[in-house]
């Protein structure tokens, strides 16, 4: 298995089905144009075999086949870090309130680990089902530049890594939500308010 495997099981099944369908369609009435479809189908099968889509690396899609929580068979991994120009204790205290965690929406949060000024870890449930888990670790930035918050999040992808890639392209991926959440926290901690244009005038009707 290659180390940079980034297709989930669901994706690979989809690739096999889609690849075979394209090849069968091409073989039933062979033509030059349909041979192109057969080529694409073969490429799908090859990706299913290697478990790797080369486009996902630039998109930042990372699959974890053996997540720390065995309830989730496969997860997609999101990692973001931010430097906040405030003391560690203050930054920790802000995130220690569960509503301030950069967790994914529509999940009930259960704080699993809480080490003052060091680490916060949580699990997000949808009903009984574990939907994601994440952690924040806090350390001093060098040279008295405040606090570095490193966020790690793993979630069960609906739609596999292909769905995640699509979400990423559309700007609605957990990466973006995580980044926005951390930036919002920095703005509140550093300036006392979150930047916003909500409710400002425009010529839109």
């Amino acid at each position, binding site marked *: 298995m290659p180390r940079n495997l980034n297709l989930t099981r669901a994706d690979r099944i989809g690739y096999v089905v889609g690849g075979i369908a394209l090849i069968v369609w091409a073989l039933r009435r062979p033509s030059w144009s349909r041979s192109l479809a057969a080529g694409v189908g073969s490429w799908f099968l090859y990706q299913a075999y290697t478990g790797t889509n080369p486009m996902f690396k630039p998109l930042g899609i990372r699959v974890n086949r053996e997540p720390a929580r065995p309830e989730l068979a496969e997860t997609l991994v999101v990692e973001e870090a931010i*430097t906040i*120009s405030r003391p560690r204790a203050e930054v920790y205290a802000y995130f220690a309130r569960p509503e301030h965690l950069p967790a994914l929406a529509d999940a009930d949060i259960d704080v699993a680990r809480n080490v003052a000024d060091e680490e916060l870890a949580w699990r997000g449930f949808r009903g009984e089902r574990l939907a994601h888990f994440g952690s924040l670790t806090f350390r001093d930035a060098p040279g008295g*530049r*405040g606090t570095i918050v490193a966020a790690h999040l793993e979630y069960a992808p609906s739609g596999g890594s292909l769905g995640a890639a699509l979400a990423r392209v559309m*700007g609605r991926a957990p990466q*973006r939500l995580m*980044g*926005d959440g951390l*930036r919002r926290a*920095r*703005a509140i901690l*550093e*300036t*006392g*308010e*979150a*930047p*916003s*244009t*909500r*409710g*400002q*005038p*425009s*010529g*839109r*009707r």
Partner: protein
Amino acid sequence: MRALCWHDRLDVRVETVPEPKLINPRDAIVRVTSSAICGSDLHLYGGFVPGMVKGDILGHEFMGEVVELGAGVQNLRVGDRVVVPFPIACGNCFFCRRGLFSLCENSNPNAGMAEKLWGYSPCGIYGYSHLLGGYAGGQAEYVRVPYADVGPLIVPKDLPDEQALFLSDILPTGYMAAENCAIERGDTIAVWGCGPVGLLAIACAQLLGAERVIAIDRFPERLRLAGLKLGAETIDYTEANVLEALKELTGGRGPDACIDAVGMEAHAYHSIAHAYDRVKQAMMLETDRPVALREAIMACRNGGTISVAGVYGGWIDKFPAGALMNRSLTIRTGQTHVHRYLRPLLERITSGEVDPSFVITHRLSLDEAPGAYRMFRDKQDECIKVVLTP
């Protein structure tokens, strides 16, 4: 209130929109008394900047009177006359505390969008696309000013709007362009583009001790201002080969520093280069036409500095990396850190050292703004700078 709204490429309209309200505690509402159309507004007008949405209110050069203050603003009073810097900056973050206000980390609520395009996000800017925050601009009767305890500068009562207005952008921008040249005694500075920023860069380069300034443009009225008003030597690039002319004028060595006050919509005369860039830009194979930047790099003396004040948005090609590297050139650039220049430049204005109002050619009402954009874009009626009053 009345406000100038962007609708589409080459389509801006003055419309009646709701008045702005305070959103955050550090906000102020300013009743605009004067605003200006910036050369960089023409990039929005021409549809060269991504992230514009139908109905966006334009304008990042404005001043006026404080009419409402959030609870977090202690240093201003209702009734104060203020000029507002175009970069929106919090004053608290890593960059603001180092004086790099246009790199404020907290003011752009759409930083994630900008990161995709540019790697990291700069500050938010009034009326300058949703990439830079989507903030409503000041070509309107009223405008909301975030972080009002950091940005606005109180203007002395006896100083007319026309002398103070350009502290919002073009005077500090011209100044920073000249400052980035690290001018030493005997230096010759070449300036591409004699629009308002180029003209003020010439004036500031002289203020900072440049021995000679050489101005490059093609419009006679602009070259006239650079030559007759400011005493710069001038090159009309439609008549001369700029590289050869500069070489000759500088004793075969090249200007010590070059200022690009043109940016992404440069023109090159009858040249294959212009057609090449125009076609690539139209086909979206490159976003910007870097004719002036390329020429500034090629013209600069060995070990010299290229100071880029013109606005670029995306990608360029045929970038002369070989000249840059082999000849030890330095490029300095950035959106202007306006906040740090406000007080020193206000002093230079009140003491009479600089009067930036010489660039104004048209004084119009806000309702005339759509026509003014067209006139400014097409350089009709010798238009150099338009000031609007609501």
